[in-house]
């Protein structure tokens, strides 16, 4: 698995909260230009961290339940989960290097 997997409200718990590896979750929507911009960066990171971190994405428009649960009011938001708990909360478009620092922290 080297591309972010699209998930929805129904399988969020299984794919994210019950994952044995850290998970980066990309909250996005079709209307959001910066979300489209961040997508290729997240794709690259998914390649680089293949096997160590799972990458998923959730369309907040189609899945308001999960977005509301984590209080997503700005997108793109990236949450990094470890053992079912969010350990990083990154709002907006950030340089790839900064995202890597957050991912490394989740692995450490």
């Amino acid at each position, binding site marked *: 698995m080297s591309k972010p997997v699209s998930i929805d409200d129904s399988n969020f718990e299984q794919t994210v909260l019950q994952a044995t590896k850290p998970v980066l979750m990309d909250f996005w929507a079709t209307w959001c230009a910066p979300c489209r911009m961040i997508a290729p960066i997240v794709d690259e990171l998914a390649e680089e961290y293949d096997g160590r971190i799972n990458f998923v994405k959730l369309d907040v428009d189609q899945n308001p339940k999960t977005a509301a649960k984590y209080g997503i009011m700005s997108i793109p938001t990236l949450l990094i989960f470890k053992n079912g708990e969010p350990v990083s*909360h990154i709002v907006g478009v950030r340089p790839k290097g900064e995202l890597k620092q957050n991912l490394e922290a989740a692995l450490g």
Partner: protein
Amino acid sequence: MDDNLDYDVVIIGGGPAGLTAGLYAARGKLNSLLIEKAVIGGQITNAGLIENFPGFPEGIDGFELGQLMQQQAEKYGLKIISAEVTGIELKEDSQKVVKTTEGDFETKAVIIAGAASRQKLGVPGEEEFTGRGVSYCATCDGPLFQDKAVAVAGGGNAAITEALHLAKFASRVIVIHRRDQLRATAILQERAFAEPKIEFLWDTTIEKIEGENFVKRLRLKQVKTGEKSTLEVAGVFVSIGFKPDTDYIKNVVPLDIVGHVITNEKMETEIPGVFAAGDIRHDSARQAVTAAGDGATAAIYAERFLTENK
């Protein structure tokens, strides 16, 4: 990454100024690198429909315009990377080193074409509630405020464009402006005054943003009377302009008092081979089209500089 690669020109910033400079530099067969720290397209990507860029009578989506400029420049060989520039070092042999989070790049010329960051209100609650009701991007977050009351801070083109966009989703849009009239262009003002969901609070500043997990209310002050009030909103969209990101070059090139780079009409700074273009420049009109023009001028004079200093 690509440590010590030797470029003819390194362009800092991927908005209309940088992408146009990159287009001209690449077409001039200069070995060119563009460094963008966030979104290709820059500020225009958040602008929604851009109606004042010539050649698009129906307007063009700002994000799409950025993508098109990128494609056009890459077609001629511009290399683009995602990194944040941390400094520029001037070497004795007139070479420059652009230092970034992804390594150092040696170059003969530099075009500073980035970036401005959004001016924050600087009031209590703003940091705390960023992403929890405080937003800097109505096109991103507007739909998440369906049927809710929201405020917009600001009175310029960007603020009024955001208010008009938010009126499609929100139940009420309250524009809070510290002056008694808008700075936005006449056509945008007309549209805003005609939109029944948009209200205006004149001569008013936001003193504090309050809430629990999310924004619940704003504490306001009428600047002329000093009268204080409270406004219940679920969100506040801050659009009070941009401040130039030039801290990293303040010891390299002369800046004006606000932090804009000072150039002549050829986009040259005082340092030979260092140019600036777009909104970061002193006296810029801060429009996508003027930024593009600056970028073209900077690239043309950068090319001449390289020819003369071979």
